[in-house]
């Protein structure tokens, strides 16, 4: 099977800091994959490289068979990648409904737009808050809203950077179920996540990033059983 996303020897420095080190990564279509690692491991930076917010110093990124290493961010989005940022990137001074309108407006027929937005609001449990300014939502609701905007694009590949941060355990579980539903419909997912219960709920495969390098890869049970991985979380191993 041809991977949906591949990186070859991807490198990125910030000044003297080697944030992404020779990362070879592959993600198969239909996979739900979690990226874990201590704070500062370079997880968000890896996402930004995939999205084109940063350009790599060396290495290649292939998506759906195309080299997108130097493509503009919006071009990558139009090819079917979508993202929820770590810090919610919503339009704070616009209403919740406006936020979703802006995400959806070119993906559905104008006549069906209102109806689709209503459905999405229902799905995100934000129907009662649709007239609120997005900036006034609770942190958890902001996360939901941005996830909603990301899936509104009907992407093939969805990147989620800490999607459940600020959510209650119930909300986290519900988010997991929602993502599984999207995955069943064919969406490939890559999520950065700290909540191990959530990782166990959704991930087929787990990659551990440490000091910008791939430290370990496997199923959640293999990762949990890996003593080196446990150690880096306690800060005992220097890569």
């Amino acid at each position: 099977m041809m991977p949906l996303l591949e990186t070859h020897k991807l490198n990125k420095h910030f000044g003297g800091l080697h944030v992404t080190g020779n990362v070879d990564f592959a993600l198969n279509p239909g996979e739900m994959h979690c990226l874990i690692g201590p704070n500062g491991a370079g997880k968000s930076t890896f996402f930004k490289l995939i999205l084109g917010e940063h350009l790599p110093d060396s290495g290649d990124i292939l998506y759906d068979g195309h080299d997108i290493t130097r493509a503009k961010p919006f071009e990558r989005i139009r090819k079917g990648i979508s993202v929820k940022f770590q810090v919610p990137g919503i339009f704070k001074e616009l209403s919740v409904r406006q936020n979703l309108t802006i995400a959806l407006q070119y993906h559905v027929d104008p006549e069906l737009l209102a109806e689709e937005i209503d459905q999405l609001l229902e799905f995100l449990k934000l129907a009662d808050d649709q007239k609120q300014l997005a900036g006034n939502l609770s942190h958890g609701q902001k996360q939901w809203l941005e996830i909603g905007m990301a899936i509104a694009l009907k992407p093939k590949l969805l990147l989620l950077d800490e999607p459940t941060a600020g959510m209650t355990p119930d909300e986290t579980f519900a988010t997991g179920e929602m993502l599984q539903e999207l995955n069943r419909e064919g969406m490939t997912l890559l999520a950065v996540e700290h909540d191990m219960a959530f990782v166990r709920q959704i991930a087929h495969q787990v990659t551990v990033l440490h000091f910008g390098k791939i430290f370990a890869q496997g199923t959640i049970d293999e990762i949990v059983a890996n003593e080196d991985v446990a150690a880096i979380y306690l800060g005992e191993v220097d890569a």
Partner: protein
Amino acid sequence: MSRASRFTSFLKLVEGPQTLGNGPKFWSGFAVVLLAACSYPAFADSYDVGNNVYFFNWLFMALGLSLIWGYGGSLSFGQTAFFGIAGYSYGVLTINLGDAYGLTLFSLVMAVAISALFAAVLGYFLFFGRINGVFLGIVSLSVTLVLERFMAQTAGPEWVIGKARLNGFNGMGAMPSLTIPWPGGNIVLYPDITLYYLTLALLVIVYLGLRMLVNSRFGNVLVAIRENPLRAEMLGYDVRKYQLGAFVIGSALAGLSGVLYTSWGNYITPASMGMTAASLPIVWVAVGGRSDLTTTLVGTFLVLIVFQSLTIHGSQYALVAMGLLLVITVLIAPKGIVTALVEFVSKMSDRRKSKAEEVR
């Protein structure tokens, strides 16, 4: 969708999330104001009416800046560059072409097109070069100041285009007024009642057209870029194209102001692109409430009238007053004074409503 229903849904864009003032209450108010504006010439001296067209002339530039800055989030400090380019273009064209056969109207269109083209070229380098924020302000201000300097040194007789002397800092004059060809005698739009009605009609058309634009999908993306350009790009929008689009439209409106002003007074000077002239539109739009077309329009109109009445006592005082007004706005009502008043009134009426419900 049928063609008719597509047309009605297009017209419906005149109301929407990006414009304050929707619903029957607003439109009744709009009708009253329009009626008052239409009946004003009946109660005033036609000389005053013609003079007061002056206030309308600037409103197009203000609306354009509201689009670029208030809606799109790009602060252009150099809208007067497009005002001047169009004003001078109108002068050069009409002095050479004359005022027969509707050639002044052709010149108007050409002059606006020239300023739009200039905006497209400048905007391309700015936005596709990712020059944003304060740098955009600095570059656009520099452009207008360079144009002012350039035009100021064109006093010599060698600075002539066809029959048109540029005339340096003294300014260019004697271009014909806009003239409408008419069977049985051309209608020359001197500053009087006909020009008043035509400018008013143009203003209403531009205002309603811009309302439709900002409530369209284009307008949605524009405010998204203002709020969070990265998120907008990560929804698949080529942010640069939208910024450029808004810049060209807004600058063409500054050009329209320039032509109307030049034709109205048969005069344009380099000072219209200078530092003072460049900063005034920022004051008008910021004081009124830049992120809405209606507050921009009302605010600009009021500030212009106050400024004009202060100028009678000395233009230096008037400028200081404008500076103070801007500072006060930024400190007390950063979204604009008209916007703050609108929000205050709607909050009060909400409170009264909820009190009335409590009593029940």
